């Protein structure tokens, strides 16, 4: 049976509807009104100007991390360690903010450089563990994520603890000159948006129009034949990791310098793991990344209002996005399901 045209056209919406139905079911199970709950999420994301600005401010590091992941995914690497790379970025920026004194512009430049170096270093470790140590990047990355979290805890309860005594809450607030200039009374810094757009443009050009992008692609498709063609797999893999780590580190700087004003316990807010979902959902298509990461940001910020209003756990936002990605992975491609023989299979066989 050949699929009718309209089926193919509405097919991409099936996972979206499926994910909404699943979360609706959960809400009903917990005796909450689905309409009211989804309303709370939407209002929590877009209800007032300050809420919209929060969504944008949360979106920026997520967008940065997703942009970096485009490079590592292209090279065929599962950079789960991005969570730790964001954290090291936060730590790098915090180190400058707490220890140096300089005019604001100099200080911010140094903070950003330290953050990018921190993220790149943590990514390099994952890369070296893979190329030299034979440790798959998933395991190396995961271990380093946890070590980064522990390093943060050590710093905020030890050397960087506030003068009133150590707790596991965070460092004292940074000096004003160290913080990114923010829009109105919000957590959104226009400068960080500018940097993000520049980063995304550079990555897009690198992937589409440069020889390096082509080499990464060859590496990702088939590492062995890329090697035989003269692509140094180790060098390109490490470069891709470090570039991604630097962007993640920049995201970490935005977290401490504009979302918060200090280094906190769960500084990354799971943004690294979310970014992996964003890129998977985009099916590696470049220009979907900003849109999807914005959508994720809106859902997650909106869920906070949901929790305040209905007392339901805010993990519902994570469930909605997770189920959406799962359904897209499983059912997004109608050809793979084998429900219809739409002629696409024949091409593959030849």
């Amino acid at each position, binding site marked *: 049976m050949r699929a009718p045209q309209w089926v193919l056209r509405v097919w991409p919406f099936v996972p979206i509807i499926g994910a909404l139905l699943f979360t609706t079911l959960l809400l009903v199970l917990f005796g909450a009104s689905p309409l009211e709950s989804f309303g709370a999420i939407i209002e929590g994301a877009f209800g007032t100007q300050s809420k919209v600005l929060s969504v944008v401010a949360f979106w920026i590091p997520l967008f940065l991390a997703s942009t970096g992941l485009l490079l590592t995914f292209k090279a065929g690497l599962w950079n789960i360690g991005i969570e730790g790379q964001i954290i090291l970025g936060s730590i790098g920026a915090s180190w400058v903010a707490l220890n140096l004194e300089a005019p604001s512009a100099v200080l911010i430049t140094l903070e950003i450089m330290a953050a990018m170096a921190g993220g790149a270093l943590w990514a390099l470790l994952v890369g070296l563990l893979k190329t030299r140590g*034979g*440790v798959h990047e998933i*395991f190396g990355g995961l*271990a380093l994520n946890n070590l980064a979290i*522990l390093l943060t805890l050590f710093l905020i309860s030890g050397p960087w603890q506030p003068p009133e005594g150590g707790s596991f809450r965070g460092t004292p607030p940074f000096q004003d000159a160290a913080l990114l200039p923010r829009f109105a009374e919000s957590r959104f810094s226009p400068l960080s948006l500018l940097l993000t757009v520049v980063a995304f443009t550079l990555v897009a050009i690198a992937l589409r129009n440069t020889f390096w992008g082509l080499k990464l692609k060859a590496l990702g498709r088939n590492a062995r034949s890329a090697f035989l063609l003269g692509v140094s797999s180790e060098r390109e893999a490490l470069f891709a990791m470090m570039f991604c780590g630097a962007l993640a580190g920049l995201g970490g700087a935005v977290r401490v310098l504009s979302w918060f004003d200090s280094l906190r316990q769960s500084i990354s807010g799971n943004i690294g793991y979310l970014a992996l979902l964003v890129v998977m959902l985009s099916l590696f298509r470049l220009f979907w990344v900003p849109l999807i990461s914005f959508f994720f940001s809106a859902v997650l910020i909106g869920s906070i209002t949901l929790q305040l209003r209905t007392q339901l756990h805010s993990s519902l936002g*994570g469930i909605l996005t997770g189920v959406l990605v*799962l359904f897209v*992975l*499983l059912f997004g491609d109608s050809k793979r*399901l084998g429900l219809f023989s739409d002629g696409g299979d024949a091409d593959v066989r030849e």
Partner: protein
Amino acid sequence: MFESELIGVISSILLLSSPLIIAVVGETFTERVGVVNLSLDGSMLLSAMAGFVAAYETNSLILGFLGAAAVGAFFALIVAFGSIQLRQSQVAIGFVLTLLGDDLSAFLGQNYTRLPGPVVQKLPIPILKDIPIIGPIFFDQNVIVYFALLLVAFSWWWIFRSRPGLSLRSAGERPDAAFARGVNVKRMRYFYTLLGGALVGIAGASYSLNVKIGWIEGLTRGLGWIALAIVIFGGWSPVRGAIGAVLFGAAKNLATVLQPTFPQVSVVAFNAIPWILMIIVLVIVGSEFSERLVALAPKGMQRPLRRFLRVSPPMALGTELDER
């Protein structure tokens, strides 16, 4: 006096590491047949929550474990269906399920946190428990420990010594050859992936039904990843995997013992031990570094040491089968 203390420590290490042993053996089955179920961290959390809620509501431990096994098997079914039927990336599906299991356990379990619930009781085995040394370590424990130990022995025999085990391994090593010899590779992969998932579920419930205050958010977070790493360290063998799990338990135990002795060392440093161990161990089994270690050993020891340190995964691990 010292001796009885040591026996006490060893038996408590065994008790603590039993759930991890069960998870490691479960994933070993799954990977031996050629499928990577990366969702362990999430499915263990969700099954720990589900097992506790089921046991709490029905006041039956058996239903708790069954419920947890069903949850673990269901997650495994999604991985199996996605990779075998739909030919999607096992890693991608497993990773999404990891995050989803975490969020689902937090949401679904939100009304059951910090509640006292049913607990698996100690069940000493008469006569056997009175054997010196061995008795208190192995036979004065609870059902979870007995199950873990029997599971290790049985699964080793099943995988390496039985006829069906040979088919199981062939499906993971050379699926096309196995297929040509009449092994139903797809069915085999479904079966063992689900079996492994069910065991992971039981492992999750073994955490939440082992202590009085059963479920708290993030109860087993991180342990699923540790289990996945131990499977590699164990060279895809249940016995070695179990040894790895016990060694990990011992290292954690050592940390809790040492902590009060060295109050000047930050708590954080002790919490870092598992992750540092994970990196070191994976480097040793995964790289040329093991050869350098072997070279240090006396001549007669080199061969067995090399056999111990070198591991290699099932050849078709993570790949799909093309039956066309």
